């Protein structure tokens, strides 16, 4: 459904994307991960036909995304990363305009989505909060029932409750056989919905793998609070190689070896465990250190 081959675009400052290659199959939810400025949006801009590739090609349903951009876009529901609306419109004005441009005249789906996301479309857009604007954008993206969704950082600005509503919406569409490309800078945002993910850094694809592989590669850090000094000493000597960060707190880094962790901890009296999410940067660091080895 989406195919990107050796896509290259270098900007005058030397940044850009270089030989980006990946494809998204029908019915798949594909995550596109990378820190800010890594080239996610640039890649997506090529898919939407906003830029002409210097080298390579981006295709949607076998249509060249530059040469046949309007036709290619007709299959796509696009949620831009930075939502910039037109001055002076209400939510309804905006949705009417985009709906007309999409060629949708049935407002049933739109009403259903507004109901689901719970916002008032009569509000002027300039008076809306960031989250509300994001909801208007999501309705515009989903209301014409496209086959392919391209979502640039879709959950930014949404509260956790709405994030869940959004994820349910994605899963619902996925069940209908729809295809998704979703960019994000946080792993946890996409791990609940994606099948596969590509990681991009400095304009180059670092890896493309199954989401479960990425999950197992992800290291997690636990802060374990114990009650006795001798327990702290014993754990520090164990194969978990923890670090002491406070009198009674040790920090343990795990990467897949959860069994050992539970086994060892079961011998002591544990007062508290808290988990730190590993940032995407750390996942990249893992890749780089692995490449160096």
């Amino acid at each position: 459904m989406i195919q990107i081959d050796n896509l290259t675009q270098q900007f005058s400052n030397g940044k850009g994307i270089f030989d980006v290659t990946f494809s998204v199959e029908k019915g798949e939810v594909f995550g596109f991960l990378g820190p800010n400025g890594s080239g996610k949006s640039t890649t997506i801009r090529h898919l939407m036909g906003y830029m002409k590739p210097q080298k390579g090609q981006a295709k949607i349903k076998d249509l060249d995304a530059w040469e046949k951009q309007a036709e290619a876009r007709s299959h796509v529901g696009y949620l831009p990363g930075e939502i910039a609306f037109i001055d002076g419109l209400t939510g309804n004005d905006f949705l009417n305009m985009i709906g007309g441009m999409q060629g949708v005249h049935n407002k049933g789906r739109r009403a259903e989505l507004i109901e689901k996301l719970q916002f008032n479309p009569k509000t002027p857009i300039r008076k809306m909060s960031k989250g509300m604007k994001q909801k208007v954008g999501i309705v515009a993206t989903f209301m014409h029932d496209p086959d392919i969704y391209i979502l640039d950082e879709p959950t930014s600005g949404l509260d956790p409750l709405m994030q869940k509503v959004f994820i349910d919406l994605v899963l619902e569409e996925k069940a209908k056989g729809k295809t998704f490309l979703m960019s994000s800078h946080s792993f946890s945002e996409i791990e609940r919905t994606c099948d596969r993910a590509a990681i991009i850094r400095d304009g180059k694809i670092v890896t493309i793998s199954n989401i479960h592989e990425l999950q197992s590669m992800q290291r997690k850090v636990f802060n374990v609070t114990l009650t006795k000094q001798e327990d702290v000493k014993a754990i520090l000597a164990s194969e978990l190689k923890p670090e002491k960060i406070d009198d009674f707190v040790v920090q343990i880094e795990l990467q897949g070896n959860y069994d050992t962790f539970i086994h060892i901890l079961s011998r002591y009296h544990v007062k508290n465990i808290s988990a730190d999410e590993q940032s995407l940067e750390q996942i990249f660091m893992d890749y780089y250190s692995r490449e160096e080895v």
Partner: protein
Amino acid sequence: MNLSLYSQMMKTNVKTFFGFGIGSAIYVTLMTSLFPMIEDNMEEIEGMMDMFPDALLRALGLETFNNYGQFISAEYYGLFYLLILGVFSVMMAIQLLARFVDRGSMAYLLSTRVSRAQVVITQILVLISGLIIIHILTFGAGFLAGEFLIETESTIAFSEFFEINFVGFLLFFAVGGYSLLISSMFNDERNAFSLAGGLTFLFYGMNMMGKIVTDIEWIRHFTPFSLYEPGKIASGDADVWLSCIILAAIGLISYILAVFIFRKRNLPL
């Protein structure tokens, strides 16, 4: 063009169109209402005008002053009209393209099956619709005021007053054209505005300078403003057809180029 985009753009900008149109109409009406008074005191006024340097009178189009057409050309179409419509054309042309690209909202206009060419053509039609609304209001107000406020036989002929407005419309069809062409090339709204506004100001200034300093009259060949001489249209001395053709051609070529350039360039959305 795309009808949904057009109607929303018209809805968003209709206040601006009517604001400029009504402002222009009121000005024409006010000036027209002054004409009977001027006409009654024509001798004194002509005597007073003899004291002004010729260059100034030429610049303002005040050389002859004996009928309504020449009066309204000098008092409105030769000066304020050019400023008001110049501001309008440049401002709208920049707002309709460069602003959307600069702010990123163009991403939404280009998120559907509507092509870039269709988006630009729609925006061009919005700009032209605005110009038409303003000119209809101005022409209508001037015509009605002429009918009801002026009782002498020196009332301007309908066809000449129409020509003054029609050639004026084509002048700003051309000014809007090159402004929209600039608007289609820039990612930065302010740069586009500076260039289109600066160019318009320069063209206007060149026309003025050419009229004031007869030695450099040739520079008027390089500005579209010289093709619009409302005073001469009123006295029947202007080559209206030639002006119309050249101005329409400048506009059309600019709009076509704008569509081509916007279709082919990378957009930072």
